[in-house]
């Protein structure tokens, strides 16, 4: 099946269950972290512990090994999956075990240890209820924490009824759970070996933390006499005290639980007597606690990731699933599309690239749109979108070079090794826009012919169902050059940054921004500046994006030195200046630009707060409005400024709370992803069409959001700054004092 068929099929069969579950987890996360007194500090503490631990990893591995041996256990450091499996098989064979019970462990899935043991004739039983369902159904997990969220209660009931044929067919979640409890309970007490993962390992005492809710990990350890724990080397922290921020963050970040039912702090071999559950004579305390413990520490690419400046952060991941649940695309397709061999969700790109290789990461990496909604959700502050961008860049460079004749002219980029043609087309959109404006409206007519759309679909993968942007003949820069500034005694001086879309397509919002700032007493200039590099950055064309960043700085820095602020209308470009450029340019360049850049409504907010006279702004026309903030703007904490300005001016504002509109720059234009983009967009449409909202005019901050909302709704959305712009012929030019 093609990619587009895969995605369509998954959305049809699994989409509803995935959406309901992931959105529930995501809402739970917001509610649960809000209860913490200092959530941000706790995340930073967790981050610092991981940074330090990965830095000192070789030393901690040695320390842990010493501790475990002191405690009476054994440590085996496995180079790769085959090495780990061979060791595990030898332990199981040595114990002469016929059954191995397992609690949930992603690392064991990475190893595919079940298959290895089964080949030896060992009965391997998953005891996590979700994992057991998948074992029975012979399916793969769709989520790293809740592996069977793609399955509805009805489908699980059908599975159980068919396989076990119970006297009374099972129906409710309660019945299904009790049935599984019974079935698995009987077999757990009749097993010799228990395999668990380990969420965290303390080097100083040899203690492991297991974060669970069902109690199966406790039983897996308590009911067997041989315990094998499988863990990636990155799970080690110095001591038990270091578990604290993680214990408080992991459940909240993942499924929105303040804490899971059980956090086992085990220093194996544990003291619990190893009993014979069929014995009716001997009291518990009379059984010996004769137990074996084996810790299998798995490298499997991790030590190389530690040496990789861009992938290293992946090793801080605590597998909480926040990046999956907060991801708009994941909410629609789940881990069967947005995942590799083992891991799923945003961070999976890092894991799969490091463990399996770029080919595996390439299968799903494009599903990360760089919306950044996972960034604040990650309890260890990993820049997950950056990892996705870097891996995309590497994939581009490994890939085939597109045919030169197609690329020349349209793609004057810095990609020496060549990204695929579609990526280069979108990455070089500035050139397309320039040509488009220069030859508008003819360019718009031509591009919209059936033949052109057919070619664009075939050659570039631009979906014919999308309306193309309409290039304006007069750009914002040209418009500005042809008018006189109206401010003579300015309160501040600013550059309005003519981002690609505002300059060529949504020119009206640019004019509105200029007029609003002037009405508030700001002296404005609109120079010709390079596009920010957001477009190539999104396509993983890092060198090209860097080139853009340098050119932007070249033009803007003299203005900044001259005392001007930089006001940015497009939030994704503002995010480049204040966030993404940190990865692209030197520190002082980044800091200069970041320090002086403002999102336009943030800037208006600051002006009003500093006493600027709002009298020159347009009066409220329709009071009740709906507002959709841009994903990256929200990550930067800048949604509130727009809402505050609008409310101050007398608007009644209803805001959306979906994570992303689904358009995400070029993503929604791509033929492979158009339907997914619309599925994500439907959730926004549902909020904007809800009772009490459906009559409200819609404003949105992002270019993509505006295009998406335009496609989703009858109402034509506008940028919020357009509400503020003095009506032409009216108050324009009036200014405070």
């Amino acid at each position: 099946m093609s990619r587009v068929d895969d995605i369509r099929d998954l959305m049809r069969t699994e989409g509803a269950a995935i959406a309901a579950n992931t959105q529930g987890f995501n809402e739970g996360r917001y509610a649960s972290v809000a209860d913490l007194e200092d959530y941000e500090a706790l995340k930073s503490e967790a981050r610092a512990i991981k940074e330090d631990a990965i830095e000192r990893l070789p030393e901690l591995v040695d320390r842990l090994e010493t501790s475990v041996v002191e405690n009476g256990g054994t440590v085996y450091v496995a180079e790769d999956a085959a090495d780990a499996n061979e060791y595990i098989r030898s332990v199981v064979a040595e114990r002469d075990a016929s059954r191995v019970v397992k609690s949930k462990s992603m690392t064991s899935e990475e190893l595919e240890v079940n298959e290895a043991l089964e080949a030896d004739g060992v009965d391997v039983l998953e005891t996590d209820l979700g994992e057991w369902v998948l074992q029975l159904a012979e399916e793969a997990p769709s989520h790293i924490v809740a592996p069977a969220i793609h399955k509805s209660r009805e489908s699980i009931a059908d599975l159980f009824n068919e396989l076990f044929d119970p006297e009374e067919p099972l129906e409710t979640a309660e019945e299904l759970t009790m049935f599984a409890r019974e079935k698995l309970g009987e077999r757990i007490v009749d097993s010799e070996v228990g395999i668990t993962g380990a969420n965290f390992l303390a080097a100083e005492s040899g203690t492991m933390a297991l974060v669970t809710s069902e109690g199966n990990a406790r039983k897996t350890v308590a009911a067997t006499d041989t315990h094998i724990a499988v863990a990636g080397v990155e799970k080690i922290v110095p001591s038990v005290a270091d578990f604290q921020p993680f214990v408080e963050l992991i459940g909240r970040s993942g499924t929105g639980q303040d804490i899971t039912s059980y956090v086992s702090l085990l220093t194996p071999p544990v003291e619990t007597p190893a009993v014979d559950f069929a014995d009716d004579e001997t009291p518990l305390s009379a059984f010996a606690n004769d137990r074996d413990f084996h810790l299998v520490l798995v490298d499997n690419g991790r030590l190389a990731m530690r040496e990789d400046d861009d992938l290293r952060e992946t090793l801080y991941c605590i597998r909480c699933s926040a990046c999956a649940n907060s991801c708009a695309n994941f909410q629609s397709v789940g881990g069967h599309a947005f995942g590799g061999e083992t891991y799923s969700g945003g961070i999976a790109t890092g894991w799969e690239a490091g463990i399996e290789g770029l080919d595996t990461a390439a299968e799903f990496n494009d599903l990360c749109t760089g919306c950044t909604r996972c960034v604040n959700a990650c309890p260890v502050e990993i820049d997950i979108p950056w990892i996705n961008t870097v891996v995309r860049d590497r994939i581009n460079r490994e890939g085939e070079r597109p045919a030169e004749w197609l690329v020349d002219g349209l793609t004057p980029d810095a990609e020496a090794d060549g990204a695929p043609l579609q990526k280069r087309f979108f990455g070089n959109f500035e050139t397309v826009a320039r040509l488009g404006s220069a030859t508008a409206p003819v360019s718009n007519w031509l591009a919209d012919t059936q033949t052109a759309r057919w070619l664009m679909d075939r050659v570039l993968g631009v979906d014919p169902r999308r309306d193309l942007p309409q290039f304006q003949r007069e750009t914002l820069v040209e418009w500005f050059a042809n008018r006189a500034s109206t401010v003579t005694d300015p309160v501040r001086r600013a550059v309005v940054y003519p981002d690609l879309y505002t300059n060529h397509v949504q020119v009206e919002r640019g004019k509105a921004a200029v007029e609003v700032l002037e009405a508030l007493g700001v002296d404005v200039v609109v120079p010709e500046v390079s596009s920010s590099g957001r477009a190539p950055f999104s396509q993983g064309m890092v060198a090209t994006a860097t080139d853009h960043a340098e050119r932007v700085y070249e033009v803007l820095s003299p203005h900044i030195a001259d005392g001007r602020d930089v006001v940015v209308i497009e939030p994704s470009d503002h995010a480049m200046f204040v966030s993404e450029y940190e990865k692209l340019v030197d520190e002082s360049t980044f800091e200069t630009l970041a320090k002086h850049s403002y999102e336009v409504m943030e800037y208006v907010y600051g002006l009003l707060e500093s006493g600027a006279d709002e009298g020159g702004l347009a009066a409220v026309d329709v009071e009740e409005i709906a507002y959709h903030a841009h994903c990256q703007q929200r990550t930067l904490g800048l949604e509130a400024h727009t809402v505050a300005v609008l409310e101050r001016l007398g608007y009644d504002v209803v805001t959306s709370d979906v994570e992303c509109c689904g358009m995400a720059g070029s993503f929604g234009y791509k033929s492979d992803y158009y339907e997914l983009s619309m599925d994500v967009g439907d959730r926004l449409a549902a909020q904007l069409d809800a009772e009490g909202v459906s009559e409200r005019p819609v404003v949105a901050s992002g270019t993509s959001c505006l295009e998406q909302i335009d496609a989703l709704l009858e109402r034509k959305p506008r940028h919020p700054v357009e509400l503020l712009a003095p009506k032409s012929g009216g108050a324009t030019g009036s200014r405070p004092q």
Partner: protein
Amino acid sequence: MASDTLATFESSLAEYDVPVTRVGRAAVASQVNDVVEPPAVGVALEETFADDAFSLADTDVVVDPTPVELREARTGVTGARLGVADYGTVALEQTDRGSELVSLFVDTHVVVVRETDLVTEMETAIESLGDEIDESRGSAILATGPSATADMGALVRGAHGPKDVRAIVVTEDA
């Protein structure tokens, strides 16, 4: 302050529908008898707390049961040496008397904790457990409410572990 901590502990556990009863030291055994649903098994609480007043000898609880008695029991009674008010968490022990088995292989877990062993914050609890574990190389389970799963399409209490948890807090006075 102490009573604030206990009130917080109670309200945290209320979120998991875990009833908390307060009882004076002298009345622990009779309270346990009131709370358990037979057949019940338990560990020797007087050893957990090094205090004979906690003995279950005069109750219906079978102390130090056989494995078969354990599997047939509905209720298991153990102590906890630490409780965390903010979360409603208790720190369960792993002893050679089988405390882990008694708290886990039953439908209802009755946990006895002293008010003086309650702390407010998780940070305090893990620091103190960390010190203890570094020293003893022992283990503990931070248990919060009954076992639970949402894997079958809705939240269900009682997955592999107890379906119900009841807490008895032994207060200083009364």
